[in-house]
């Protein structure tokens, strides 16, 4: 139990520290590296909550896929000019106030909400039970088959769309 608590706080510190560095760095490459730290922290929290498949997906897809895409675009687009300019826009004070208001609202509901302050069930599945990936596949390919197919259509549209956007002449 103690190990769980300590691990949670370590990963939470990684997530929040990486997130704050992501939105404050001047250099976009530094931001991307901080975002990778944050995403790895989130992956660790998935593992802590026995979502092993999503842990693997998070690392392979986010850190290995999306972040490489970001780094490629940072390389293709000339960011030197942007790094020398003002980093925050003029309405930053209003934005901070609005975010603080939303944060106050959420924390009010977290403190006064009902019934979710219970300890999350830490049941270990019996040794013969199917693993997390197997259960997920079972549900995904029976109950959620249509959304799954629609998601593949969405990815096709995204691929075609990004090629059309990024290509010079079609």
């Amino acid at each position, binding site marked *: 139990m*103690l190990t*769980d*608590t300590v691990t949670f706080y370590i990963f939470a510190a990684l*997530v929040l520290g990486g*997130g*704050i560095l*992501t*939105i404050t*760095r001047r250099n*976009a490459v530094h*931001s991307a590296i901080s*975002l990778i730290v*944050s*995403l790895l922290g*989130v992956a660790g*929290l*998935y593992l802590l*909550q026995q*979502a092993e*498949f*999503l842990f693997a*997906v*998070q690392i392979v*897809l*986010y850190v290995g896929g*999306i972040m490489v*895409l*970001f780094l490629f*675009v940072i390389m293709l*687009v000339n*960011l030197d000019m*942007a790094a020398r300019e003002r*980093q*925050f826009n003029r*309405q930053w004070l209003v*934005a*901070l106030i609005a975010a603080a208001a939303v*944060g106050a609202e*959420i924390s009010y509901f*977290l403190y006064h909400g009902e019934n*979710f*302050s*219970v*300890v*999350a*069930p830490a049941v270990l599945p019996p040794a013969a039970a199917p693993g997390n990936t197997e259960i*997920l596949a079972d*549900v*995904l390919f029976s109950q*959620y088959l249509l*959304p799954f197919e629609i*998601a593949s259509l*969405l*990815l096709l549209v*995204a691929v075609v*769309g*990004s090629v*059309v*956007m990024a290509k*010079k002449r079609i």
Partner: protein
Amino acid sequence: MHPITTVHYLALSAALLLIGTVGVLTRRNIVIILMSIELILNAVNLNLIAFSRAVGNVNGQIFAIFVITDAVAEAAVGLGILIALFRNKETVLADEIDILKW
């Protein structure tokens, strides 16, 4: 030391969501705005997984998979738009792209 409950995860997720929101609202660099959107989507996923475990079934994890699919599609199209934009306007600062304003 208190054991970690669902509320801990919800609070962490809310904090991450707020960090992402502040990033989207205050930064001028479009690349970093897109990264902040990834932070927001990760906060949503954290929330879904925490509730999935608290309720005791895997539907939340399935939704997290769909959210990740959306994040991929959004990043691909967003970065494509950014490249097209940079080719036409030579800038990546969000508040310099104001052709629709007058």
